[in-house]
């Protein structure tokens, strides 16, 4: 495998880059799990497209989004599932909290928030790297309007990329709050189930946000949930464009800053009263 060149990174960043690298490589070692994921997600995406086709055919005029845009949305969602599935938590972090392994991490000259953030990014990206390509390749060759279409112009493509990165970071900043809560409660199962169902539903992971009733949709669009996968995927297909796209990217930035600052604050408070478990 080609090694990343880390020598040019500034000193402070280098340790986090190395951290990213080792977690990324560790993630790549689960290849058969990735293939299983590819098949599941391809099947799931196919069924979702067919389900929406049935809705569409029963009443095309009340369909809130172009059918081809919806197909793109679904295939992007399946291809990048590993990046945006909220329920995918790093078990090692929870273990380190409950078993006391966190002691080692606190013995490092690093910020724990940054270290866990990077760890999560790397885990999700390494999973996505293995799974996204086969799914996208198949989706590209599906007949119109059931496959993924190219982005709606260069501007959409650029905005999509910006929004995709921001959405990914917002999601991780949100999941960091779950890890931090585990420092207080030790067992995170309850918070996880509650947060996972709320986030999955409100982020458009189950039903895309354009299908929500108008009033509710307008509110959800401003929440951090819509700032995760919904905004980038809808920008890609051109369902959201122009000023609205720029505005929603602004919303993403605001939530990233808010969740990030709150997380760093909550973490430093948690560590002041931390009790490392075990002998």
């Amino acid at each position, binding site marked *: 495998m080609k090694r990343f060149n*880390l020598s040019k990174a500034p*000193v402070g960043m*280098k*340790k986090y*880059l*190395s*951290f990213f*690298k*080792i977690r990324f*490589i*560790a993630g790549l*070692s689960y290849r058969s799990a990735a293939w299983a994921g590819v098949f599941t997600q391809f099947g799931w995406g196919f069924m979702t497209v067919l389900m929406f086709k049935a809705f569409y055919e029963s009443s095309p005029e009340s369909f809130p989004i172009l059918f081809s845009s919806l197909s793109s949305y679904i295939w992007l969602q399946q291809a990048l599932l590993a990046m945006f599935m909220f329920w995918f938590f790093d078990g090692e972090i929870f273990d380190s909290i409950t*078993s*006391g*392994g*966190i*002691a*080692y991490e*606190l*013995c*490092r*000259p*690093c*910020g724990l928030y940054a270290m866990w953030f990077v760890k999560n990014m790397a885990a999700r990206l390494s999973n996505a790297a293995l799974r996204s390509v086969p799914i996208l390749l198949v989706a590209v060759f599906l007949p119109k309007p059931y496959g993924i279409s190219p982005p709606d112009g260069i501007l959409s493509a650029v905005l999509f990329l910006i929004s995709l990165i921001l959405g990914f970071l917002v999601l991780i900043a949100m999941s960091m709050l779950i890890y931090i809560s585990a420092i207080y409660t030790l067992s995170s199962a309850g918070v996880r189930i509650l947060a996972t169902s709320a986030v999955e539903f409100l982020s458009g992971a189950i039903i895309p946000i354009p299908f929500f009733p108008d009033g509710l949709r307008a509110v959800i669009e401003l929440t951090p949930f819509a700032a995760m996968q919904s905004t980038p995927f809808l920008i890609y297909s051109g369902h959201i464009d122009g000023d609205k796209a720029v505005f929603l990217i602004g919303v993403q930035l605001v939530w990233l800053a808010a969740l990030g600052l709150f997380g760093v604050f909550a973490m430093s408070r948690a560590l*002041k*009263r*931390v*009790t*490392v478990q*075990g*002998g």
Partner: protein
Amino acid sequence: MIELNGVCKTFKVAKRNAGFREAAKSLFKREYTLINALSDVSFKIGDGETVGYIGPNGAGKSSTIKVMCGVLVPDSGECVIDGLVPWRKRKEHVRRIGAVFGQRSQLWWDVPVIDSLELIRDIYSVGEAEYKRTLSELVELLDIKDIIKTPARQLSLGQRMRCEIAASLIHSPKTLFLDEPTIGLDAVSKLAVRKFIKSINKSRGTTVILTTHDMQDIEAITDRIILIGRGRILLDGPLYELKGKGSEGKTIVIEYSGGGLPEIEGLTAVEDSGSHAKIAVDTALISVSEAIAAISSSVEIIDLSVSGQTVEELVASLYREFRI
């Protein structure tokens, strides 16, 4: 230089009685017991010392180590290590210390050990030349050349522990904390680990603070013992001084035939079967050679061995003495 002064730490532990009713009750009203993990712990450790920090389970050993590593914040008291308060200046402090927690791992499970070591190099911003020098030294002393390319999950416990120790020394720390480093290791690995720790203390002047239940670790590595029980420091002094304390009294074990054992002041037969006997010698009253002379003049000795109190017995008697 490590200085602890009046360090106290109390843990709040939820407790309830067994049974469903009690479990349901605890949903609404929780009862807590306060456990004094550390009460008024004070000691000083100079540069280059090797200290064995001992005490029974739950005495507060690990809590003290965690305070010194900056992982645990005490309720009151001071702790200054080389001019820094560990939990206030955590990042600066941890740069200068290394830690091995015998029951946990700092190596990445799925990747070769060498990748973990490189990550640690980057975390501590160790320069490439220094890293290469330290690594080759550690690899040779710990004899891990053949295993550092193996993923950590495929290593035996002894191999892994040697790699763990290497990992904690990549950044050449001034102080090394070892929390039960030989737990679960076989005899060969134990000896290798002990020898290595001793040599790193000699060659680099690294301060070593060791907690263990294995008294041979203490004998092989440390010059000084601090005994803690129920969160208090009970004893602090050089190992030989402690040994001196318990050394009045030897035990002579003999296989013999013919005659009866002599009855002299200072000799007590602890066991006697007529051919095998265990005799306690009070060395304040009679010397060992006098005792042997007396025994051999009254019985035919077939086999004989003399043993003093082991460090193990010594510590057990200390635990009894302090009722911990």
